[in-house]
């Protein structure tokens, strides 16, 4: 099981123009300028690849911070 810190790093990897230092567990990710539906799809694909968890679009929609999403993934494992 990956730690919250590892998840935050994987989450930040999905961005191209946003510096990883801008993304922490408490970041409200949908407020980031670069956030898009494509990045949402990338987060879902990353959760599948790294955690073997099938996130729904609604899970991403309902989460506010990066940590919220990590908890959803933990709940599905």
């Amino acid at each position, binding site marked *: 099981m990956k730690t919250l810190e590892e998840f935050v790093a994987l989450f930040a990897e999905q961005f191209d123009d946003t510096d990883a230092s801008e993304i922490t567990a408490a970041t409200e990710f949908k407020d980031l300028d670069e956030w898009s539906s494509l990045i949402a*799809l990338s987060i879902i*694909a990353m959760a599948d690849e790294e955690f073997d968890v099938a996130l*729904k679009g609604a899970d991403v929609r309902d989460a506010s911070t990066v940590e919220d999403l990590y908890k959803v993934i933990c709940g599905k494992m």
Partner: protein
Amino acid sequence: MSYNPFSLEGKTVLVTGASSGIGKATAILCSKLGASVIITARNEERLKDTVSQLEGNNNKIVVADLSGTEGINQLINEVNELDGLVNNAGINKILPIQFVDEHELMNTMQINALSPILLTQGLIKKKRIRKGGAIVFVSSIAGHTRSSVGNSMYCASKGTITGFMKCISKELVIKKIRCNEVLPGQVDTPIMSQGAVTEEQMTALAAHIPMKRLGNPEEIAAGIVFLLSDAASYITGSSLIIDGGLSL
């Protein structure tokens, strides 16, 4: 009986992926227009549900997994002469390009492109499609007129189908078999509701369609049935867009 060039009376039509969505709607409409329908898919329970909704008594179920040669050959051996073939079975896995891997790519290409090609090839080789028959592929506007992000494998597979269709439509003229495809836009089917896209996103998507709504499977089936019928007797190698104006 009054003249009806859209009738499928006396024809036998094979529909793949007939347990849900566009395939199911096509099978039902073919039967209503008088065809005997052979439906195939992997799931026997759902096929039984489809067959229970078909008109007439000459319909048949073939449970087959078309993701491999064994299932394709089994299906070819279980059908007799056909007047129509609807290559509909398909999957859609949404993955941004950096997450595409060989396994997922091969799976999508196999089910959406290679299996329909091999099924068509086998049926032609065994002369299972009569003169005057018609083949219809269910492709997509995806990869043709409009793409959505995360859809690269699906677009590649549907583009493959179009290239194949255009070539064999020319080859099959000599056998008096027509070959066409429909290109649906966004249709309300189970393939669309796997969860990666939220209901809000679907609503937003519908707002971009000139007709302001998703298509129904029955509206795609109507185009397929037209291309199967004698009303389309001079149409071969064509791509019929059915998308509520989304490509415009």
